[in-house]
């Protein structure tokens, strides 16, 4: 099988779906000739033209709202939001409009659109270009949220997102665009709500999203040298969430750490941890730990930024404590 970058994988998914369905189009800033600042969309405008790869002014609420309208009336827009941080600008159109229209119309209207955007710190981009805001979106009923952890997932999840009849937000980790992974030539889709067990283990479950899957895998390697076998699970979509796979894993291992790059408080890690507590409590030998980004705006200085996100060493250290029964209650 060939290896392609996450960026190429997204590009292929978009091209395939746009060939398949003439009602799809891409709309966003510098998506056409420039192919976005990360060059993810390069080549698409050459194939599909500027009618279907539409460069907009810097007017996020405007083009997001237009995507909602187009989706309600028969098109399948793919909104390109240059940085995940700009979600705050489109919140009304996304959360008050797109998310609720199907419900409010008693199921009569659909809003089949995709917002593809990104997340992730440690790029020295400071507080307004480094956030991981998936929890904010996941909080709103009516929105689905996908978090690809490699090129393979990025392609399969994007194709599913485009065919889904709901608004879907996909967060790509901007540090992973050049990461390669095996991706088959033949067409495939990855269904939403199916977690992927990346590595099997019996001692502790490491449940991780997006780039944190790599962090968890590295931690698992460190741990296996010490005789601790960690199971690494990637939920792939956080809405819908494959609770069943997560709970089964925890029933087997009886310990878990949940890792996500969003802020730790009120975040994705909190939600998953409390579901495990509610549904697997009597199987647990230790409290489920959350590891998210520190609850601070992302600092610019490399000396500070690097300590705000979970690392393999940090995950391994916490896993060791959980497995040795060390009391790690904060208070």
């Amino acid at each position, binding site marked *: 099988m060939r290896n392609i970058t996450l960026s190429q994988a997204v590009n292929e998914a978009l091209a395939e779906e746009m060939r398949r369905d003439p009602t799809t189009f891409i709309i966003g*800033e510098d998506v056409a000739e420039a192919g976005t600042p990360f060059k993810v969309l390069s080549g698409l405008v050459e194939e599909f033209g500027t009618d279907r790869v539409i460069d907009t002014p*810097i007017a996020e609420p*405007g083009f997001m709202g237009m995507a909602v309208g187009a989706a309600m009336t028969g098109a399948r827009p793919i909104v390109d939001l240059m940085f995940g*941080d700009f979600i705050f600008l489109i919140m009304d159109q996304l959360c008050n409009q797109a998310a609720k229209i199907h419900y409010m119309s008693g199921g009569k209207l659909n809003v089949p659109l995709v917002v593809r955007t990104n997340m992730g710190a440690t790029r020295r981009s*400071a507080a307004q270009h480094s956030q991981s805001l998936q929890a904010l979106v996941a909080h709103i009923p009516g929105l689905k949220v996908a978090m690809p952890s490699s090129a393979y997932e990025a392609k399969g999840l994007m194709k599913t997102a485009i065919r889904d009849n709901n608004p879907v937000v996909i967060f790509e980790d901007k540090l992973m665009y050049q990461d390669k992974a095996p991706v088959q030539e033949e067409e495939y889709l990855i269904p939403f709500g199916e977690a992927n067990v990346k590595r099997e283990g019996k001692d502790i479950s490491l449940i991780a999203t997006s780039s944190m899957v790599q962090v968890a895998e590295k931690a698992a390697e460190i741990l296996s040298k010490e005789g601790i076998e960690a199971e690494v699970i990637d939920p792939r979509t956080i809405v819908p969430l494959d609770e069943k796979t997560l709970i089964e894993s925890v029933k087997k291992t009886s310990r878990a750490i949940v890792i996500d790059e969003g802020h730790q408080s009120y975040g994705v890690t909190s939600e998953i941890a409390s579901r495990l507590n509610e549904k697997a409590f009597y199987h647990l030998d230790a409290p489920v730990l959350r590891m998210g980004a520190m609850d601070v705006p992302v600092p610019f200085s490399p000396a500070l930024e690097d300590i705000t996100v979970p690392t393999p060493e940090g995950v391994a250290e916490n896993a060791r404590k959980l497995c040795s029964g060390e009391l790690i209650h904060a208070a």
Partner: protein
Amino acid sequence: MAKAKTNTEDYLRMYRQMVRIRTFEDNANQLYLSAKMPGLTHMYSGEEAVAVGICEALTDDDRITSTHRGHGHCVAKGAEFKEMFCELLGKEEGYCRGKGGSMHIADQSHGNLGANAIVGGSMGIATGSALRSKMLGHDDVTVCFFGDGATAQGLLYEVMNMAALWNLPVIYACENNGYSEYTKTEEIAAGSITARAEAFGIEAFKIDGQDVLAVNELTQKLVARCRKGEGPFFIELETYRYHGHHVGDINREYYRSKDEEKDWKENRDPIIRFRGWLVEQGIASEEEIEAMNAEIEKDATEAVAYAEAAKYPDVSEVDMHVYAD
């Protein structure tokens, strides 16, 4: 600083400030190219007459809001090289203790409320600052810098409406450098830019942003009128950025020709033009100007060396300043 710029000293300071901005940017670009700077940064080179012409008409009490392309505004408003380079390198002695970096430099002591990485993100802030000035009976004026691309943001129209309704002392300064990222302005802005402000009854001006004296003269008038309660105003300044959108945007011929860049650099450069005028008017000799340039270059070199050697903030600072005491 707000006195009429009719004497030699004022002219020379305007020249000096423009050269300081250019020199700062050349050094910042060099830091990027030699991989010493974390992240990316947006160069102000080419647009110096805009920031200097405007800020030389302001006092330290007057406020500005700046943009992602903010080093020029920061220098023009009175900032020091040392603290700026420290900030660009994420060092503790930077204006924001390394927490902000290039896109968030703020300099409270000179009334710079900060650069902003959200395009259009400071329009509310600038207008709110003007609201406070009027409400508390102060006489300071706020200048809101933003690019042509930022005119696409709806926020501008919400706040211009209120500023006009309530006669707020704010000047909207649109730096039209012909591009927003990799897209030409005419592809993203329908109709006239100044007409957008005029629709709210705001007096709007379109001027040559490469002519520091023209910019300064107009701004002085508008600032004086703002202080008398006649604001708000809108200025569109035609200018040009010499570098790419950011320092990493090097192969850019697919959206902007080399000939166009050459034309602006050779025929409309604000520093060359003003230097010629200073010499012609007998305000400074070539030798004096060269000496000034050399001194600024030396300042910058020293500040860079200082910043490179300066220390990073202690890791214990990471959760300081999330909340105010």
